Structure formats: structure tokens, C-alpha cells
């Protein structure tokens, strides 16, 4: 019994790595652009479809398809920025939300028209391996490692380069950053491209785990938002921690009860934290 619970915790930690990857792009977009990207999960969905087309229809090897997918979602991020986000940057928050909610409908219906309602997945059954009495799903382990590497690279970018530094600063004071000689437009483009690239990476690591369908996106958008809000909107470290909390809680609760009850428990924890700390685990109360 104890062994099985430890096993569930291990799986939860692996899942946490996947969740962290899912949430980080959303968090970055909020921190830098104050953008609430409602269509984030749909971006992941589009990534999965692109991957599916490239692997199944075009017959490309997975690695090549993965690279193309990541590039395309990055470009998609920039296009969405030019067409939707940029024009609404100074508009009331509600207009932005409505525009992005509109994007959900566009993405979902487009997928429905092109690929139909079927569940589609790339056939690659990765094994479950036994390590010292514990059972570990390879697909989760790969996603976990990929997630950590991606987060590591993102960390290096944000903390070791001038552009990354200015992206962190711009979320604190836009005008102040302009006075340092930063062209904020560049930062916004780079951030939107990074957000797109991250959804592409998520899609690549999700591909062996999930099948994609036109309504795939919304549950992941919600999950990502819960993680980001729980950690503190815009706080990258907070999002990272809360991703692992969510991963372990759902995994252990699902083992002890059922996966439906696990979702309820995760939600209750979320609501509980929000009541005690509305700003999230690592969040800072807005002074302004």
C-alpha cells in the first residue's frame, strides 16, 4: 500500500513537470503583457493537430515534425499578437478577453471543419517501466525531463540575457523600461513568440500522452489558469511550485479515490488557497 502511494507521488511529480511546462507560457504572457490568454489551450491543440498532420499524413519522423510544430506555433503567436493583442493592448481588459474568447471559437470550429470530431493520436505506445518496484510511464518521464530542460532554458534566457532581463523588468514598469533604452515592441513580439513556442513544446510532449480533438483545449486552459493563479499570477516560481502541488494532489487523490473525485479535491484545494491567500502562493498583492 505504502509502495503504491509512493508510486502515485512519483507519477504526480512527473505530471507536475508537464503541468509546469503548460502553465509557464501563460504566466509569462500575463507577467509581461498583462495578457489573459484565454485561447492558450487551443494553441496547444493546434500544435497537436499540426504534429498529427506532419507525422501521420506527411509521414515525417517525429523529431522533424516536432521542430516544425514548434516553429509554426511560434509564428502563430506572433500573428495573433499583430492581429489581436497589439491593437487591444491599451483597450479595456474585457475587450481583450472577448477577442481571445473569440479566438477559441475560431480555433475549435476550424479544427472541427478540418479534422472532424474524432479523437486523433499519434500511435507511439511508450512503455511503462518498472524501476525498483515502482511503475513509471515513459511518456510522463520524457515529458517531465523535457519540461525541466525547457524551463531551464527559459530560466537562462530570462536571467542571463539582456533581452530576458528587460522582459522581466517590463512587467514591473513599462515606461521605466523605455527610459532604459528598451524598445517595448521587441519585447512584446519576443514574448508572444515565446508563448507560442512554449505551446508547441507542450504539444510535442503531450502527443504521446493525449489524443487530440476539437474540444481538447479548454480543459487545459482551465488547468493552466488554476496553476498560474494558485502560484500567483505572473510569478514564474510560484507557477512552478503550484504545478507540482497540483500534479501530486491529483495523482495521489486519483489513486486513493477516483480521478473525478481527484479533480474535485484539486479544485477544493485551489478554492481553499484562494480564500486564504487571494494573491496566490508566491503572489504579491498589487500595491497600485
Amino acid at each position, binding site marked *: 500500500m505504502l509502495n503504491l502511494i509512493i508510486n502515485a507521488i512519483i507519477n504526480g511529480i512527473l505530471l507536475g513537470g508537464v503541468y509546469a511546462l503548460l502553465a509557464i507560457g501563460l504566466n509569462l504572457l500575463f507577467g509581461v503583457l498583462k495578457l489573459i490568454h484565454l485561447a492558450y489551450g487551443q494553441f496547444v491543440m493546434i500544435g497537436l493537430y499540426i504534429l498529427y498532420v506532419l507525422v501521420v499524413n506527411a509521414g515525417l519522423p517525429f523529431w522533424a515534425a516536432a521542430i516544425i510544430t514548434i516553429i509554426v506555433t511560434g509564428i502563430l503567436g506572433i500573428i495573433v499578437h499583430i492581429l489581436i493583442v497589439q491593437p487591444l493592448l491599451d483597450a479595456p481588459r474585457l475587450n481583450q478577453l472577448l477577442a481571445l474568447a473569440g479566438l477559441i471559437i475560431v480555433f475549435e470550429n476550424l479544427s472541427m471543419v478540418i479534422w472532424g470530431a474524432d479523437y486523433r493520436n499519434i500511435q507511439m505506445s511508450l512503455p511503462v517501466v518498472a524501476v525498483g518496484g515502482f511503475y513509471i510511464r515513459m511518456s510522463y518521464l520524457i515529458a517531465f525531463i523535457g519540461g525541466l530542460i525547457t524551463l531551464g532554458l527559459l530560466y537562462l534566457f530570462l536571467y542571463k540575457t539582456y533581452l530576458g*532581463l528587460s522582459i522581466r523588468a517590463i512587467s*514591473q514598469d513599462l*515606461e*521605466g523600461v*523605455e*527610459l*532604459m*533604452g528598451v524598445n*517595448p515592441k521587441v519585447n512584446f513580439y519576443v514574448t508572444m513568440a515565446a508563448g507560442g513556442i512554449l505551446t508547441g513544446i507542450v504539444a510535442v510532449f503531450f502527443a504521446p500522452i493525449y489524443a487530440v480533438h476539437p474540444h481538447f483545449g479548454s480543459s487545459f486552459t482551465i488547468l493552466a489558469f488554476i496553476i498560474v493563479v494558485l502560484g500567483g499570477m505572473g510569478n514564474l516560481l510560484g507557477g512552478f511550485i503550484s504545478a507540482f502541488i497540483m500534479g501530486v494532489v491529483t495523482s495521489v487523490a486519483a489513486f486513493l479515490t477516483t480521478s473525478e473525485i481527484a479533480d474535485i479535491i484539486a479544485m477544493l484545494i485551489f478554492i481553499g488557497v484562494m480564500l486564504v491567500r487571494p494573491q496566490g502562493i508566491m503572489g504579491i498583492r498589487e500595491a497600485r
Partner: protein
Amino acid sequence: MLEVSQLSVGYGEFQVLFDISFKVKKGSTAVIVGPNGAGKTTLLKTISGLLPIISGSIFLDGIPIQEKKPHQIVEMGIAQVPEGGRIFPYLSVEENLKMGSFPKRAREKFKDRLKWVYELFPVLSERKKQLAGSLSGGERQMLAIGRCLMSEPKLILLDEPSMGLAPLIVTHIFKLIQDINTQGYTILMVEQNVKKALQLADNAFLLESGRIKIKGSKEEFFANEYIKKAYIGL
């Protein structure tokens, strides 16, 4: 070095600056004094390119800059220490200084200049790993000035560096500003602390309700009856 000519600026319909003209000579310290709401911050923001102008022009070494974007103006060598310092509270002290060296020309000299700024402000060196938001008011102002020096500017705009600081710290900061000027930096400072600010000045301007009322040298300002009565309190 800096020439402002017949500049008018406003926020939408609401005009704040009217027909402002003045010059700042290379290597000098110019001080603009004036009461709350006179338009001092508006003027500095306009020079930095943050506000659109209604009419007039601004020249840096003879090149018009009034159409340029803020980041281009910084690249050209005008750095501003904004009102209240506006340091980045969630970046460390050293990261704030690194932000100052963002312009291309400043990056390669980052290490040398960092050393120099730490010599000027030893307290920043002691706190380099600390989040800037945890600094005291005086330390923040020093950080803001140090950050501006990191960009290797030709001209430094200072918006009320004495704001909200204890008299002793104000004296210290003004001394540092004077040292920086002696090292060859041109300074345009906006202040309400008229007496202390004028002591640093080569030239001074009085800005009242958006217009320049009096121009003159430090000596002329100290001798002026109106300035004495309304601003120095003698």
C-alpha cells in the same frame, strides 16, 4: 548640447507647457525650479520622448529628437532618473544596474562601469543581491542615479532627486550629483528644493504654470527678489 525651442506640450486637450525655450551647455548643470504642477515632470518626459509634443523642437547636439522614440533617445545619450527613482522593485540591485547598461554602447563596458558606480555608491555594492524594492528611499534614489550612469549618457535628466528624502540624505545626494558633473557629465535637474538645487547650478530657469518666467545664472537667481521671496524664503 541640449536646445529646447518653442516647445508646447499637453495631455490631450489640456495644454501643460507653453512655448518653452532654453539651452543647456555641454558640461554644465542646469536647474529648473518651480512649484507643484508647473510642468517640470512633463518637460523631462517630453525630452525623453515619452510624451507627444504639440509644437516646437528639441535638439541634442544639433540633431532634432522630438520625433524619436524613447529608446532611440536613450541610445543617443540622454538618460533620465525619473521622479521617485522608479527602480524595478522585483529585480536585484545589480540587475537594476544591468538594466541601465541596456543600450548597445554600454553593454561591453558593463563591468568597468559597475565598478565605478559601486565606488560612487558603496552602499549599493553591499546590497547588490538584494531586491531593489527592499531599499530605503535614499538608497533607491542612489540606485536610480547609478542605473542612469550605467548607460554612459551625455546628458542626465534628474527629476526631483530630493523628493521625500531627509535633509541629510539630500545634501549627500546633491554632493554626488555635483561630483558627477565635475566628471564631465552634463546635467539638467528639476527641483523644488530651490536653495540646494541652485547651489549646484550654472544656469537656472523658473517654470511657473507651464511657462519659463525667469532665466539666469546661479548668482542672478540668488539675487532676484521674487525668487528670494517666493522660493528661498529669505
